[in-house]
């Protein structure tokens, strides 16, 4: 319920049927929505300095000695003496040039701290996304084919548990069962080297995947039950096509469209879930960095990671919408009713 929604429906073009030109118009329209959105998000992120309780200069200084000279340097560095909107403009132009400011811990550039932590989060997210799509679509399809049976009911119940169990709760159960009781997987840390890292990230990836997977199962199952009841399936069966052919050539492709539409939900689920999972399993990723920065009131680092996470979510949504129109000609020709 929380999070980004597929915006395809509302922005689907209704222009005259046409090939490339309407696609260009569509992409331009999506961009026209995305750029203001990114600006509004960046404004919110910038405003965090001023929302934080206390004087912005001392928030930006953190625990460092706040003698008048240092305060003056910080005021100049962040243009705190300028009018509010001018400050935002200057900050934004620095951000666009890749300067996210200096962390209050150890005087490091926020960008280099983020670069150190990015790897773990990327691998974790990729592993979970693979699990979410692979297992989610598979279980959804199985449930739809065996609709009404015990297996279907078991998968549906698994979905309810998945939605109800947040990543950090699932993570604790996985830690206990596979780490403490069975000793199959390491309990903490990211591991070294590619294989060892994948080994260390297996439990976190499953914990992260479960709740998002539940959404994919639900959508795939509903879409596939609907698709299977359509006339073209009956007709294909009547013509004697094999079940496998009907499934892979027709039903699967058509039922994946709603899953693509839910890409926004999936991305938000993975990004927010990664924060919880990294804290649960003590992984040095971007999510754990964000929480650590919040606890130490390190505003520049919070701004950096928040901006990165939300820009990523917005841009993935944009990319999905564009790919979606390329894949499904009905949208390009404006014939999809939302």
């Amino acid at each position, binding site marked *: 319920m929380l999070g980004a929604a597929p915006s395809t429906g509302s922005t689907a073009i209704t222009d005259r049927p046409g090939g490339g030109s309407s696609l260009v118009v569509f992409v331009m329209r999506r961009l026209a929505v995305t750029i203001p959105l990114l600006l509004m998000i960046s404004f919110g992120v910038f405003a965090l300095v001023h929302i934080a309780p206390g004087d912005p200069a001392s928030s930006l200084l953190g625990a460092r000695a706040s003698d008048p000279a240092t305060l003056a340097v910080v005021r100049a560095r962040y243009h705190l003496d300028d009018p509010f909107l001018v400050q935002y403009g200057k900050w934004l132009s620095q951000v666009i040039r890749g300067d996210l400011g200096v962390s209050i811990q150890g005087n490091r550039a926020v960008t280099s701290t983020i670069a150190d932590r990015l790897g773990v989060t990327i691998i974790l997210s990729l592993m979970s996304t693979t699990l979410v799509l692979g297992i989610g679509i598979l279980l959804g399809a199985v449930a739809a084919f065996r609709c009404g049976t015990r297996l279907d009911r078991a998968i549906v119940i698994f979905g309810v548990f998945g939605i109800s169990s947040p990543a950090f709760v699932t993570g*604790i159960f996985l830690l206990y069962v596979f780490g403490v009781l069975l000793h199959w997987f390491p309990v903490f840390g990211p591991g070294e080297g590619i294989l060892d890292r994948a080994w260390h990230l297996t439990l976190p990836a499953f914990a992260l995947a479960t709740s998002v997977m539940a959404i994919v199962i639900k959508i795939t199952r509903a879409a596939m039950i609907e698709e299977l009841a359509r006339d073209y399936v009956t007709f294909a069966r009547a013509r004697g096509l094999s079940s496998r052919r009907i499934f892979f050539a027709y039903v699967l492709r058509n039922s994946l469209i709603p899953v693509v539409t839910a890409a926004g939900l999936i991305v938000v689920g993975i990004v927010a879930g990664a924060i919880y999972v990294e804290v649960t399993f003590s992984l040095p990723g971007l999510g754990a960095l964000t929480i650590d920065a919040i606890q130490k009131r390190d505003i520049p680092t*919070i701004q950096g990671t*928040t901006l990165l996470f939300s820009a990523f979510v917005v841009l993935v949504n944009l990319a999905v919408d564009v790919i979606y129109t390329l894949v499904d000609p009905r949208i390009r020709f404006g014939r999809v009713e939302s």
Partner: protein
Amino acid sequence: MSAPAISETRRRVPIVILIAALIVTAMVICAILGEKIAPDSPFLQRLGVGDTPPSPVHVAGTDLLGRDVLSRVIYGARTALVGPVVVAAGAFAIATLLGLLSGYLGGLVDSAIMRWVDFMFALPGPLVAIVVVGVVGGGYWTAVLVLAVLFSAPDTRIVRSAVLEQRPLPYIDAARTLGISRTRILFVHILPNIAPIILAYVVLDFAFALVNLAGLSFLGLGVEPGTPDWGRMLFENRSILFSNPVALLLPAVMIILTAVSMNLIGDWLYERFAK
């Protein structure tokens, strides 16, 4: 006008829903009675005892500060239930007002409200909650407020589409013809008709708010340190996973049980009354 036999089977509540309702009732009793039914004080520290596994005296063992885990879990039902109730009620108070106006009036009001909803939808909600609560501070009640605002956007969309379904129906035309005021049509005629949908989603929102609030407490951003709260217990007891795993597993089970029960009840209400 269906045959009595059919309405009989339709009215029967499935056993799963009864169990779910029973679980929720038990949680509510824990939340109301709290320390009265807890076997021990949820706050009493025994630093000399420290973390111990389950024993006859402490059925679920003790935590790092020697506090009785079972009593803390029972007492923790309070923060687990009160916040989500406020979030769900607050979100739907905002959503009902905006959704009714947007769906019934249409035009500029509708466009303005829908642009706001679209904007909220484009934000990564859980991340916004973490960062805003983390930076602004204020813990539990800030979290409740932020979640209520975030949840109100998707809820507005739900109320609006329910209103749009009602608008072309003859009873609205009839009410208009009778000269009944717009406010009265909205709140006296349309609202009762969409109430079942709202009720189903309030229950689903509750489950989602419970999970989110527990999550913020787990990150150390929700309730005050030391408060018996299921999410906070998962945060504080992480270091005793080996010595007393029950201190983590019990609150985790409570979160899942309550959320699963509310999700099942919400889904059932939706299927039964809102379809």
